[in-house]
């Protein structure tokens, strides 16, 4: 059953909107046991519960692929749209133009985003559609049994696909260049960081991109593959320690110093605390962010945390000056009066 009733039979701990954690569940996952995607789904459930989200105010969208099946497995009381391969961004854009008061969580994969959907992904960010865009990145096509995706590392060898001869696309770099103002990378195994990043991303007023390395337990879990569990736990280099404090008081942002705790204010007034671990790293500096990503790529590491943050761009709904959600206009707002038509046609006589 995908539409569970809010449970009031069993005494469960309820959050501020009267829902239990179970109320944020979806259908049972049909993905492989141990798939990184499932742990991301469970963090979305946890975030919904902890942030007291009202499920009907959320839409969840996806493209095609293993990752894109996952919206069925969380937030069963939210409307879902499992779109076409690589085309979730356009559907999300349309849905959020129709109702910009909805919160959108999009889930995509590395093939869905980095190959077939690269164009729509870039244009989503260029328009700054307000949504959380999660890429469950495993460098491999699971549903079609293990072909390389565009994020697979050069030289990687897989049983089915042989050797990958092309360099990987770095989705965080692509996101930064396309104008996304919230770009983060994490590791599906790091539940706390994933959770805190999703929380922060939800309050970002624009496209928030989370590239989450989510190892494929079936087709791409060779220990020397950077997108395997073994590699991830050994090589993960957190950029910041994150702690999310909803609705706290505004704190002034100071220039980053090595080792300093930095608090970034988000649009709804909530704050995100960042522990700066790199002495020379500033997440508000676009060039530095790109440089850090390029360096990490060269050394075969993946850095995690909020890599780039810039809240200054208006979202698409703001650019379009949307007020009453277009899906909720009255018949009078939708159809001008009879006299308006007569008047208008005068110029064509």
């Amino acid at each position, binding site marked *: 059953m995908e539409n569970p009733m809010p449970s009031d039979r069993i005494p469960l701990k309820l959050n501020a909107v009267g829902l239990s954690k179970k109320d944020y569940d979806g259908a049972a996952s049909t993905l492989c046991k141990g798939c990184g995607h499932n742990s991301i789904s469970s963090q979305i459930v946890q975030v919904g519960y902890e942030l007291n989200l009202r499920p009907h105010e959320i839409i969840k969208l996806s493209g095609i692929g293993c990752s894109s099946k996952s919206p069925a497995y969380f937030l069963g009381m939210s409307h879902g749209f499992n779109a076409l391969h690589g085309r979730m961004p356009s559907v999300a*854009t*349309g849905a959020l133009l129709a109702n910009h008061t909805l919160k959108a969580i999009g889930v995509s994969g590395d093939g869905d985003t980095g190959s077939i959907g690269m164009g729509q992904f870039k*244009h989503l960010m260029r328009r700054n559609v307000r949504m959380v865009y999660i890429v469950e990145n495993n460098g491999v096509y699971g549903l079609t049994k293990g072909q390389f995706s565009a994020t697979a590392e050069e030289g990687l060898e897989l049983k089915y696909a042989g050797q990958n001869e092309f360099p990987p696309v770095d989705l965080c770099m692509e996101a930064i260049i396309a104008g996304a103002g919230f770009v983060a990378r994490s590791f599906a195994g790091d539940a706390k960081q994933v959770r805190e990043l999703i929380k922060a991303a939800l309050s970002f007023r624009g496209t928030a991109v989370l590239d989450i390395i989510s190892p494929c337990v079936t087709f791409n879990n060779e220990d020397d593959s950077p997108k395997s569990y073994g590699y991830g736990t050994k090589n993960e280099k957190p950029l910041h320690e994150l702690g999310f404090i909803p609705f706290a008081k505004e704190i002034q942002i100071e220039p980053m110093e090595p080792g300093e705790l930095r608090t970034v204010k988000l649009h709804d007034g909530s704050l995100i605390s960042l522990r700066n671990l790199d002495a020379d790293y500033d997440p508000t500096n676009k060039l530095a962010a790109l440089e850090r990503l390029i360096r990490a790529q060269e050394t075969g590491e993946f850095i995690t945390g909020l890599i780039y943050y810039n809240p200054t761009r208006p979202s698409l709904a703001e650019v379009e000056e949307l007020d009453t959600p277009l899906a909720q*206009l009255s018949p009078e707002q939708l159809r001008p009066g009879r006299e308006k038509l007569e008047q208008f046609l005068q110029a*064509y006589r």
Partner: protein
Amino acid sequence: MSVLERQQEAGHATRSPVINDFSLVVATANGTGSQTANLTLLRSFFKMGIPVHGKNIFPSNIQGLPTWYHIRVSHEGYIARKPSEILVAFNPVTAAEDIQELPAGGVCLYNADLKNLPKRDDLVFYPIPVSELIAGVDVPVKRKPYIANMAYVGVVAWMLGVPLEVVEEALGAQFGYRQKLVESNLQVVRRAHEWASQNLRKQDPYRLEPMNKTEGLIIMTGNEAGALGAVFGGVSVAAWYPITPSTSFMDALREFLPKLRKDENGKPTYTVIQAEDELAAAGMVMGAGWAGARALTSTSGPGISLMAEFVSYGYFAEIPAVIWDIQRVGPSTGLPTRTSQGDVSFAYTLGHGDTKHPVLFPSSIEESFEFGWKSLDLAEVLQTPVFVLSDLDLGMNNWMGRPFDYPTEPLQRGKVLSATELEALGGFARYKDVDGDGIPYRTLPGTPHPLAAYFTRGSGHNEQAQYSERAEDYERLMARLARKFDTARNLVPAPAIEQHPSARVGIIAYGTTRYAIEEARDRLAQQLPTSFLRLRALPINQAVRDFVAAHERVYVIELNRDGQLHGILQNEMPEYATRLRSVAHLDGLPLTAEWVKTRLLSEEAGL
């Protein structure tokens, strides 16, 4: 030979006058600003009360290639394309060929700066000394080429007897009554007119006389009319990618919406997004329709192919969407500025798996307006993508029409359940046929009820919208979609039928071919009386079947090579497959009455 000598030699002065019944073609080079002059002529004739229609026959080009603007006037009200008797030769590249194409007794007004024009003794020639006429006119140098076109407006006005005050009024309307522009253009018109009256002697029989046949009418392009219809149909999200000949649809929408659809606080109740491609445009429309906004896109054939995957999805997941296809010729680039009815079978079944879509066929600006709002109702009532198949001829050309009727019925939003209704019902099944019409109930994202949500997917699903690959679930779903399509048969615009009491022959056609067909039917009234069914939408209903049943032979006339509608009708009515005969043709130009007449007669003779 001097101009005057040549005229005298032609010696047509004795021919009896031809009043309000001829075609005129203006041949210019693309990008020289002749469109303003041409529309000024068109509007002038219209303001004289004479039925008129203009067609721009132009190449895919920004500047330099030849373009022809055809204006037909007809006191009988016929506005189909017809070869021209009068030529305004302003394009040095095509002038020779254009002159050769004139029928004997025709008239050629030519830019006197053109050299080496062919001589024909059976034509009347009038020179227009353009350089002389625009010398000293007070306009910036870069506007000189534009203003030069006003010279032929003045000489044509002299030749046909168009009062200068009518030209002035038409110019005013053309320039939005910006006085300075009107004045500088009018200056050239007056000079040319005066020069002609002093230096030329009328040798041809063609004249215009005022009538009252355009009183109360408007003049507009089909794309403008369709966009205006959408504005009154409550379109709120429009997404598109530029493609000729649909671009002017969105241009009109973007012009009209700010004038008509700001709310009481001056905020827009709409948004228009230029997408990165047609695929994204279709995706945005699907997303918006799913979330409850009235959404449309406009495109042409090549764009339709990119939209195929989403249209297929929309059919299967049952999402409202309106797609305007302003048809042009051919695959790929084809003939992008030429007209056709070539996307009929493609649009009707666009998709993978078993898919069928309602397709509306506007034939006039009145119907473009009507289908503009009606298509948005139909899409939401039927919860499915709806096509409106216009064409370049209708979309980009100016047509006369009655002022549009205000929508006759209130907005129909379809079966959408509110939180209160969900509470009373105790939930719902998204894809269940509750009412027996094949149309299920839906909810919109944001509906504040724990049972409102459902999961939309292109994968197999059961009545509860749950993932399913069960054989019986798929078959039942597809059977219901077929039932829904049957419901659509009587919801889409009904055909317009002119039943002739004694006709054994019927004609079925759709869209803009009607004008050539109507004229041909009148000309054949004695020789070959016909009934006429003008199809206004697919799928067909019983009236179409009855019409075919009532005639021995039914010719399906259309502007494509393979007789696409003919094929569809044969499929829908296999019992009449041999009674339906295809009369199809495509060369990129609108049909002429002469072609229709000749083809029908030869078909009948060949029996």
